[in-house]
């Protein structure tokens, strides 16, 4: 089965893998592993063995309290990483980054596996940085305006 091939590959690359069935059917499974301190999951369906979905979740930084700010940042990062789809979840305290990957077969997917993981990681960390940057920019602007109004500038 496709899930077994992918699980063997990830283990062969040195990572512990947990496999969990998704829903009531045997067709859909999720393979969960960790790399570089981050947990990733690969969703595979034996009914659609050429389509793979790779996901990872990040916490929305605590200084980002505004949902609009978070979703704006995610939309901006999607321009740089058009293959990644971002979804806010758990009352907007986390966001999930997902890449849907269509491959000729499972071997083609595995050939590019770590590159896809790397792109997904870059997109997620890029999104977190973008959110924080926006907070800092706003704080810097507030500071400037306060100084301006006091006549310091």
């Amino acid at each position, binding site marked *: 089965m496709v899930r077994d091939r992918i699980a063997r590959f990830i283990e062969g*690359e*040195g*990572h*512990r893998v947990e496999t969990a069935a998704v829903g009531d059917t045997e067709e859909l499974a999720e393979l969960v592993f*960790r790399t*570089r301190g981050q947990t990733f999951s690969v969703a595979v369906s034996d009914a659609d063995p050429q389509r793979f979905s790779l996901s990872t979740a990040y916490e929305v930084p605590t200084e980002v309290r505004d949902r609009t700010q978070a979703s704006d940042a995610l939309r901006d990062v999607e321009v740089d990483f058009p293959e990644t789809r971002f979804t806010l979840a758990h009352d907007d305290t986390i966001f999930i980054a997902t890449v849907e990957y269509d491959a000729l077969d499972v071997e083609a997917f595995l050939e590019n596996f770590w590159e896809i993981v790397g792109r997904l990681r870059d997109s997620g960390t890029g999104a977190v940085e973008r959110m924080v940057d926006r907070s800092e920019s706003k704080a810097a602007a507030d500071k400037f305006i306060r100084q301006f109004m006091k006549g310091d500038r």
Partner: protein
Amino acid sequence: MNEADHLVPIEAAIEDEGLLFTRDNDEEALRITFKSEGDRYFVVGYRDDPNFVMIGSGWALPADVELQEASVAANALNVRKKFVKTAIWDEERDALFTVELCVSSADEIRPHFGRLLDALRDTAIEFFSDLREDHA
């Protein structure tokens, strides 16, 4: 677990990272090998020196790279990089990236293990990227 096996906390650190490992001890040395994203790493300790722990990875130099330019690139990284020592093994034509630590207990390494792996990985990437730029 052997009483003198002071690398046991490193096994826990590797497990924290979600990685698999194997042990390869002998009378003098304690050794752990593991992979991360397909790249191979090792941890070495000596039974007669429980305060010393070395974490590392090794890579073959590309055939078209001269030892002299590899040494220059390694030296530049040694000046700049935190934690990681880059060494060129002339005869084997290998580049070795190591972090050598002096600890009271390997437990001290556990919370920082991910950072040290990142440092090893990033240094190797920079080393080979610098060599490619020199060849471009």
